[in-house]
């Protein structure tokens, strides 16, 4: 009996002493990026029992993989609502994995949007509406992902691509490419930021684009595309002839960007 009481006393004493130690170790591991923050369960979010159990059981990654495979199956059945809801679970379980945000946005902004755009069974107005809605959903997914991973160059680049190729918001595309470059994106993202700025309707963006392209040109990093957009910006900004680049490449008349289907 004496030993049992001793055991109980040791258990309780150790239990109280270990708490601050555990708190310290957990904080350290989170600071090193080894442990994830506790999962955020939003009200009304359809996170199943299995997901919750996995989030507590250290099998979040495995559960996320399973949901991702289920989403892939639904993708083959073009069941976009299910794809979206499954990817929502995946990104909740693994919010620091950029790949999942990227895929979720790609499915919505490209696959689902194109599916509705070219679906002959739907009325044209509805097709346009659904196209725009899904592109917007793709943008929203990436923006949410960037709240978890604000320094991820790939997510910025994907957001820029959607703005440049789908929403035709060239100023936003330029900003996103620029963020990608600033956070370690590949070299071309800097050029692409300037190209997007050049295609916008905003004077401030033209100046930003011109500054980037001129700097690259002066650093002898000129490509045919760079010269073409630099000439375009010289026109837009009415740069004096003396300050223009010597290349006399004809400025190609660019067709106005496609507006996309009507709502």
């Amino acid at each position: 009996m004496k030993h049992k009481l001793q055991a109980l006393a040791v258990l309780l004493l150790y239990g109280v002493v270990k708490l601050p130690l555990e708190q310290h170790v957990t904080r350290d591991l989170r600071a090193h990026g080894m442990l994830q923050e506790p999962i955020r369960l939003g009200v009304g979010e359809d996170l199943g029992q299995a997901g919750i159990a996995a989030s507590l059981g250290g099998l979040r990654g495995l559960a996320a993989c399973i949901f991702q495979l289920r989403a892939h199956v639904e993708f083959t059945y073009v069941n976009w609502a299910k794809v979206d809801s499954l990817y929502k679970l995946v990104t909740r379980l693994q919010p620091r994995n950029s790949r999942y945000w990227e895929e979720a946005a790609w499915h919505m902004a490209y696959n689902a949007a194109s599916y509705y755009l070219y679906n002959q069974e739907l009325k044209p107005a509805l097709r346009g509406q659904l196209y725009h809605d899904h592109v917007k959903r793709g943008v929203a997914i990436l923006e949410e992902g960037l709240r978890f991973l604000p320094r991820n160059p790939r997510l910025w680049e994907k957001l820029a691509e959607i703005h440049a190729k789908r929403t035709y918001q060239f100023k936003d595309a330029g900003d996103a490419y620029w963020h990608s470059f600033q956070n370690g994106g590949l070299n071309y993202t800097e050029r692409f930021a300037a190209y997007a700025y050049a295609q916008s309707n905003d004077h401030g963006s033209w100046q930003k684009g011109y500054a980037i392209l001129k700097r690259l040109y002066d650093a002898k990093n000129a490509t045919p595309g760079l010269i073409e957009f630099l000439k375009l910006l010289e026109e837009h900004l009415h740069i004096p002839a003396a300050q223009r680049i010597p290349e006399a490449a004809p400025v190609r008349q660019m067709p106005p960007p496609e507006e996309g289907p009507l709502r």
Partner: protein
Amino acid sequence: MSDATTSSAAAKTPKVRFSPQRVWTMAMATVTQLIRMKILAFLVLFCLLAVGAGFAFSVINPEQQLSLLKSVTLGALQIFSIVIGVVSTALLLPKDLEDRTLYTILSKPVPRFDYLLGKLIGVLMLIGGGLIVMDAVLSLILWMRQSLLFDEAVEHLRMEKMDSTEAVTQVREIVAKQGLTWNLHWAVWAIFLKATVVTTVALLLSSIASSTLFTIVIAFCVTIIGHGEALIREFFFTPNLSGMTGRAAALLLAAICPDLAQFDIVDSVVNGEIVPWAAVLNMTSIAAIYMTVCLFITHLVFAEKEL
């Protein structure tokens, strides 16, 4: 006269000291006992799973395939180590009692602590050995898959005429980040540490309980609560979140259960994060503390247990 003889005999009985050799013998006997229970059949199942996961899902891109392979196999390793740890520990003491092996051992000059430690080390050796084999299989498959996927991705870029140096470098970086690195072995080490803590808790429960089922059920309950212990602890440390009763209950629960979420670095490793030495040291130290205290408490309980 009789009392005097007994007390004099007791006084003359030399105290049996702790013997590492004896503990080692007990551990080896435990490993043999567990192998005879065909526990290692799980290894074959794991190898098949790893090979299957490695070459399935070819429609997904290289990064996804490697990540999926790691997630599935490391998840299987976690399940393997915890289930083996809990079940084998819960089975050992009752089986020794049933076979009367325990009486044979303890009737010899073997301290109960040596017996307990020998059993624990035996189970941990089996789990550790299994994890080493599975880590080797996983590393081999990952390395093979990584090389194949890189070649395929470069070939694809070449066909699309997009094989610029920058693009190939990026593919190489992505594949290398998701491929075989030292971090994978640290993830396996973290899984082993978690299994060690769970096994020690199961041994403590086994020394208290009278049935195997009770030990298994309670050990799994502690494992599940242990993964959420950080939430309970933060609930306790956050003032004004609940009344005194709620906080007292949280304190009791957090005090009893070890924080198993501290060993959950698998997700970060799958995401390609680099495991720093400080994190490894932190996890190893806290596991050693849990193990030492738990074993000491088990010794206190088992020393007085009527067999």
